[in-house]
């Protein structure tokens, strides 16, 4: 069932010193959705988040919330809360007072504040930390305080600006699952900004891939990974081999000097295309029965798999395999029809 729209951006333009950071961006976010803005630094993802939060007023375009235009509404009047990149906890207040900050502004009775704050601290796993100064907390704990401080106000939408960026890898993985759990438990919309594609794929219902102030693709993690709409998305989401090819006819594509059956159709005959093959989708076979043959240049052990750089007719391919070949070895490579993804040719 499709949830109703909660945030809607229309033709948003933002420029800093004449440089366009968002160039006519439009986007709909549904209620109770976990949406992630994904892109390289400078792509405009944080700016988009700050437009929703109200910290940036767009030069043109409208921001609607629940069908109401809130473009000119200051941040403190929006039903939206933000978890900042470096947490932005108040250094002069302890954990309890940090979380209670928003509630105190609403002049809620003291007992209610107390019970709400304690409940929220328990939810984020910081029971018993109320009296601590925030300087006594680890990065992960500060993160939890920042989340509790926002969620205790029961926002309709929680904005998170690369909240896990400062944490180490293991803690980051833990917090990813935790955030997902919180989102389900609170049953509200999370809008999440990251440059880490793995994080985006793990947590999101919907991923918005951005580059240079524009949206490249919107879709579920599976869609984005399996059906990238252009070379930028294919490149940014996971490793991929992108090669030039010719669409001979429906279901038949030629690249790397070989013709492959595929599942794509709807291109014109002999249209130049780009072909995406994920490194893990290449099957290594003896050279005699390989659709393609390649010379192994380098083999790197990555724990779960081996990463191999293979020279196929002068182009380097990336292959992930659980079996190691030797550098200098000639190998055969097979690619199944389902693993070949065809895109119209683009510049990137």
């Amino acid at each position, binding site marked *: 069932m499709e949830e109703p729209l909660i945030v809607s951006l229309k033709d948003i333009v933002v420029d800093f010193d004449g440089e366009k950071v968002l160039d006519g961006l439009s986007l709909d976010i549904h209620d109770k959705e976990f949406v992630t803005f994904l892109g390289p630094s400078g792509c405009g993802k944080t700016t988009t988040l700050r437009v929703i939060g109200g910290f940036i007023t767009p030069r043109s375009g409208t921001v609607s919330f629940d069908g109401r235009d809130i473009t000119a509404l*200051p*941040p*403190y009047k929006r039903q939206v809360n933000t978890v*900042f990149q470096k947490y*932005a906890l*108040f250094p002069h207040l302890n954990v309890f007072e940090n979380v209670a900050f928003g509630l105190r*502004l609403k002049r809620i009775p003291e007992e209610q504040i107390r019970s709400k704050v304690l409940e929220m601290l328990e939810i984020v796993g910081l029971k018993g930390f109320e009296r601590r*100064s925030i300087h006594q907390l680890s990065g992960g704990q500060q993160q939890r305080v920042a989340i509790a*401080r926002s969620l205790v*106000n029961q926002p309709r939408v929680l904005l998170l600006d690369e909240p896990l960026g400062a944490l180490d890898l293991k803690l980051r993985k833990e917090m990813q699952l935790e955030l997902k759990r919180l989102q389900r438990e609170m049953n509200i919309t999370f809008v999440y900004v990251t440059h880490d594609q793995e994080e985006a794929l793990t947590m999101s219902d919907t991923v918005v891939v951005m580059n240079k102030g524009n949206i490249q693709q919107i879709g579920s993690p599976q869609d984005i990974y399996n059906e990238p709409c252009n070379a930028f998305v294919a490149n940014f989401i996971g490793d991929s081999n992108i090669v030039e090819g010719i669409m001979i006819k429906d279901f038949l594509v030629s690249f790397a000097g070989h013709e492959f059956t595929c599942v794509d159709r709807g291109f014109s005959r002999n249209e130049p295309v780009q072909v995406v093959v994920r490194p893990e989708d290449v099957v290594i076979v003896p050279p005699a029965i390989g659709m393609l043959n390649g010379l192994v240049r380098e083999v790197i052990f990555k724990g779960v798999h081996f990463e191999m750089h293979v020279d196929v007719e002068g182009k380097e391919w990336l292959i992930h395999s659980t079996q190691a070949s030797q550098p200098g070895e000639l190998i055969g490579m097979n690619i199944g029809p389902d693993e070949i993804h065809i895109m119209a040719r683009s510049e990137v």
Partner: protein
Amino acid sequence: MLRTKNSRWAAAPYLVWMAVFIVVPLLIVIWYALTNSDGAFTLENLTSIGRYTSVFGRSLLLAAEATVICLVLAFPVGYFLSRLRSNKQHIMLMLVMLPMWMNFLLRTYAWMTLLEKNGLINKFLGLFGIGPFNMINTSGAVVLGMVYNYLPYMILPLYTAMTKIDDSIIEAAQDLGSNPGQILGRVLIPLSKPGIATGITMVFVPSVSTFIISRMLGGGANLLIGDLIELQFLGNSYNLNLGSAMSLVLMVIVLLCMSFTSTFDEEEMEGVM
């Protein structure tokens, strides 16, 4: 490094200097305050200060007024400067400090010429048919002189404290529902407390002990503690014992002010610990 027994001797000349020219003179002040001109012990000097209560009261009042005005004027300046880009901040800081480098006698003299009966301000007001006002030789002129001379001493520590407040802290407060007034009361003021404390001391102490500003801008009618002390040491009412007693009281006032502002600071420290 260099933590050898021998290197301690490097401090010896200074320790002697410190003892003779810092500690001993203060002890002499106390001794003079507690003796009469024959060198006999007496509390008369201290008790006779009671006659000058109005002067002490005026000094405290005018210095407090100047401190409050400086705080109110400087707070926005410190905030605005701390939000500028760093290259602009640099230029603005230079602009704040530049007048401090002018000798304060010259700065005060400038106000003498402006505030005079036929000075520039009265002439300007005269163009609109207002005035002339009697501005110089009033207590208002003295406060103005203090504010003008010591405003940078308030701006600089406030600015320093506020540069440590990240933009995102202010945004977080907005995000959680603070309107501009609440941001000021709940975030900006508490977080700039160390700067406020330093600023208050740096304005109040020279203001309460000045004798030049009151003499140049206040005329004879607005004597301050500093003027009284100066009169006992170099002026007509030459009385080193009474002057020392007054100095002692002034020191106590300053110490009280500083312990007040440092508790201000310690609260802050507790929050940090």
